[in-house]
């Protein structure tokens, strides 16, 4: 069966139109006593600045062993849920404490739909990532979407404390369609770095992009 037959675009697009938001759950980063700095309905900003050096809105302060640590919003939006019953209490690590209702941009909606048809290759560790020299030279020469990768290809160099680690591609062979990282910026473990598209799926991807753009005009 063709992949396009498996995807109900009308349903996906209706879903995004009815609720064009992403709900970002915030979990406590470690144990400690919590003091919230926002409430339901608060508008928050994400990290910004040319070097992503301006932190987002402070969401809460976690105090452990007299060491208060402010935790900032990773994205913009509105606080839609908060565990204010925990105010001033001791929380465990990884407890869900806040949800941010983030309004999706057209670009994010396209990326969201594409992630259902692209093969994501994720960061194995929190570090900085760069395309390997061979891949980068092919991108420079032919363009990203002309670069075909297959399992075993050295796709990235992971850099942490000036230690370089080659990262080899594992997954479906295909072209590098979407690039979710910026060289020089740290990427969290598990976050997608690129979306790989099998060659025969490319026309489908292009139809998705065209349709979403038309629907949102």
């Amino acid at each position, binding site marked *: 069966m063709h992949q396009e037959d498996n995807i109900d675009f009308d349903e996906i697009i209706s879903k995004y139109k009815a609720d064009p938001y992403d709900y970002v759950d915030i979990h406590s980063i470690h144990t400690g006593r919590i003091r919230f700095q926002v409430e339901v309905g608060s508008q928050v900003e994400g990290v910004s600045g040319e070097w992503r050096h301006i932190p987002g809105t402070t969401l809460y302060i976690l105090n452990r062993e007299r060491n208060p640590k402010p935790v900032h919003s990773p994205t913009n939006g509105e606080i839609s849920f908060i565990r204010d019953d925990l105010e001033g209490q001791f929380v465990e690590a990884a407890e869900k404490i806040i949800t941010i209702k983030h309004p999706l941009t057209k670009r994010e909606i396209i990326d969201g739909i594409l992630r259902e048809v692209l093969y994501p290759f994720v960061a194995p560790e929190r570090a900085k990532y760069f395309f390997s020299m061979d891949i980068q030279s092919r991108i420079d020469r032919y363009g990203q979407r002309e670069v075909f990768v297959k399992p075993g290809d050295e796709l990235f160099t992971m*850099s942490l*404390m000036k*230690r370089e680690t080659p990262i080899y591609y594992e997954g479906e062979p295909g072209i590098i369609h979407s690039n979710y990282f910026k060289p020089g910026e740290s990427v969290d473990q598990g976050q997608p770095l690129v979306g790989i598209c099998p060659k025969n799926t490319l026309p489908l991807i292009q139809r998705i992009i065209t349709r979403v753009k038309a629907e949102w005009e």
Partner: protein
Amino acid sequence: MGITTTLSAARIEQLIREDEINYRNRSFPLETVLTVFRYGGAVAADILRFDKLERGMAHAKALIREHEDSGRAFSGGLVITANELTGGRGRFNRFWHAPAGGLWLTVVLVNTLMPASSALYSLAPGVAACETILEDIPAARLKWINDVHVAGRKICGILVETMRGAVSGEEYILLGIGVNVNNEKFPRELSESAVSYKQLLAGECDVNLIAARFLAKLAWNIGLLHYEENRILAEHGPGVLSDPARLSEVFTDSADHLLVKRWRELSDTLGRRVRFGHNVQEQPRFEARVKDINSDASLVLELDDGSIVTENSGEIVYLD
């Protein structure tokens, strides 16, 4: 003075026994010193010497592949040394000038540390190199992360790479160390930025003795990584192992990590105005002042507008 010392595992053990243990014992109890050296004991378990090699790292990788392909385990601690590298390469495939007279080493280690500790691997060869050079050149200092310079001119460069064994799945840490010893002619582009022992001391040095001292000190500094990991885990209990987020926090909050502490003592990076970039020569990103070095050795930079950026990888150039 020509090359007089034979570089061997026995010579390194002798240096540890006769010099290093006494030196470390000035700061730590003897029991701690012996424990740390036991942890670092694999360093220089075997030494391969060559007159000329294209690249030490490439040779080490080929040996690992050969072992892996034949189903044999590759034990850590191997040192590869060559009098001259004909195709030396640094980060970003930069040409690494490595003529006869310099010290060119590759050390292979098997990564048995947890991620929070192994992030500090890059510090150990820098600290060991700086401690070694300081024995003859008191002005040597560490520049983040692991370059050693004397009054702004680089005397030692270090390259750290990881390789995963295709069969065993082991993670190998490859340390490439280059020290300008008796070489004194540099390519024109390096003539103002590089310096050697011979230029600074106005005479030739025993390259193999410097190599042996470096490896003895590397054994200590690699041992410290293991010693500190065990100490921190013991202080926070085994439960911390099952909580990666907490584990990372524990290491980040451990302000007294002995290797990071030693790195701070040897570095002149704190407070300097710097240009930062992942590849700072070709793609500088911004200028800032170094405000702090975190306990995970990441660099805290203050931009001109007062905002703070923390970087855990990249390069800096001093501007003042």
